[in-house]
């Protein structure tokens, strides 16, 4: 009788992903520190390894612009078209090499390496193939549980030189060392508050948590932290592709490219954000009963008058119809807009989400007309095939004046024929 092999998970994640993507087509920047800025060139969201000692995550660009120039650090606006495409390439390469993959985020994925004879060699193979084919450096952490694989990956990152970027914790010795030398806050699923609670109980390192009594943890906190502790101890509780519960709230919020003082462009912006939010709503097959719309001025400039107001609108029935949602949100603006202020941001929040077929305690509850659901299905199909925004509400402009600032954006080297890398043959 064959014994089922112990499960083996790998966590593969790209080093400084956005910065690495920018460097692929800029070999001249291989040894130059770079940073990538958030939407609107607001603040730092990614740093290359050599930029880390000089720049903190989240620092606002306007504050550090001079420092960057002085140190010769190059800044890029975020180029999501490029990062998304590079991510797909990395994930496809991994999918071609291992039995199963769960894409966790734009730059991380879990892989199932169960049954593979030499997992460390496979880890090194994954790392070198991804680098060869895409130019993106990755770290690989391997262990018997997802939580330990995350820890292994973190160690691979921390100790690049000694580990070659691949760490395998399936052996007891390595596993123990990492657990004893990893702080609680580094453990996947343990946030700041939980760290404080656990430290109060005398649990300080990952090893302490692995040895803690799971039942006590479950009673005191939740099943989530219990599973984390069990996983640290080597018992796998999390499968590849644990389904995400549908979100309870969906938010779409952006800063405007420049301050807005009139109601009309703010209505356009809110209609655009609602388009995006309703796509996410339909993607998780939910309906929404309440919408909250809010606008505010800048909050940091002492010379600007401050104002912030939001209002919640209840819809006549749970809906996913972008027309109804947009009308509700845009009309609500009449109740929050005040002339005389310089608005910087708007937010659309979809609340009170329901799944179809959920029990309603209202005997006279009305449902969305079937015709509306059919229209939404067609809308999503057309936009899926021809690109987001192909078909949209009339209030959503094609090229808004209040659109994002992105002054230092690189070319979309891999997604736009007119923006290919230009190489000469002199």
């Amino acid at each position: 009788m064959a014994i089922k092999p112990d499960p083996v998970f790998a966590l593969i994640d790209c080093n400084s992903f956005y910065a690495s993507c920018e460097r692929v087509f800029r070999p001249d920047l291989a040894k130059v520190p770079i940073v990538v800025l958030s939407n609107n060139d607001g603040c730092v969201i990614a740093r290359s390894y050599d930029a880390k000692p000089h720049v903190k995550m989240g620092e606002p660009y306007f504050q550090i612009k001079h420092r960057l120039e002085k140190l010769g650090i190059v800044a890029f606006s975020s180029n999501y078209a490029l990062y998304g495409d590079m991510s797909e390439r990395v994930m496809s390469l991994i999918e071609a090499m291992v039995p199963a993959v769960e894409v966790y985020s734009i730059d991380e994925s879990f892989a199932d390496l169960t049954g593979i004879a030499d997992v460390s060699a496979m880890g090194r193979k994954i790392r070198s193939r991804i680098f060869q084919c895409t130019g993106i450096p990755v770290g690989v952490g391997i262990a018997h549980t997802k939580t330990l694989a995350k820890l292994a990956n973190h160690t691979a990152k921390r100790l690049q030189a000694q580990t070659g970027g691949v760490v395998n914790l399936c052996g007891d010795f390595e596993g123990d060392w990492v657990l004893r030398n990893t702080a609680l806050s580094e453990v996947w699923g343990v946030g700041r508050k939980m760290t404080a609670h656990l430290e109060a109980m005398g649990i300080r390192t990952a090893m302490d948590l692995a040895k803690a009594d799971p039942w006590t943890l479950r009673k005191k906190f939740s099943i989530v932290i219990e599973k984390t502790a069990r996983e640290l101890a080597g018992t796998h509780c999390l499968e590849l592709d644990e389904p995400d519960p549908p979100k309870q709230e969906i938010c779409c919020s952006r800063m405007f490219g420049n301050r807005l003082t009139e109601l009309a462009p703010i209505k356009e912006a809110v209609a655009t954000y609602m388009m995006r939010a309703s796509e996410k709503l339909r993607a998780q097959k939910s309906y929404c009963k309440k919408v909250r719309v809010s606008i505010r001025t800048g909050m940091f400039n002492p010379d600007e008058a401050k104002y912030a107001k939001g209002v919640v609108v209840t819809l006549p029935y749970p809906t996913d119809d972008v027309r109804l949602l947009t009308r509700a949100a845009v009309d609500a603006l009449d109740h929050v807009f005040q002339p005389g202020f310089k608005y910087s941001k708007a937010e659309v929040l979809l609340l009170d989400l329901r799944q179809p077929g959920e029990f309603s305690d209202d005997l006279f509850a009305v449902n969305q007309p079937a015709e509306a659901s059919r229209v939404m299905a067609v809308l999503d199909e057309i936009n899926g095939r021809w690109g987001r925004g192909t078909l949209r509400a009339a209030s959503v402009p094609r090229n808004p004046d209040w659109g994002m600032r992105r002054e230092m954006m690189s070319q979309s080297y891999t997604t736009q024929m007119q923006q290919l890398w230009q190489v000469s043959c002199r």
Partner: protein
Amino acid sequence: MATACREPGSIPGDVAVVDRSLEPVHGDAVVALLNNDPICKRLCLREKNVILQSENSKYPDRHVLEGDDLSIWGVITYTVRSHGN
């Protein structure tokens, strides 16, 4: 990945299709990084010497010397010609 490559002997504006997964061998058209500068050339390995050749006689061959830093970014597998339409 596709790269726009003005390869001599071809019409400017040709698009080159570059495959990074291939190991470059003698005779391959490649995108090379010579001292971090990208160029399209033909790779010529003669004993211990590496020469980056042009297709166009207007441009001389580039011998790779001791102090040079050379790496191959990718191998060019196809070029696509635009006919201006």
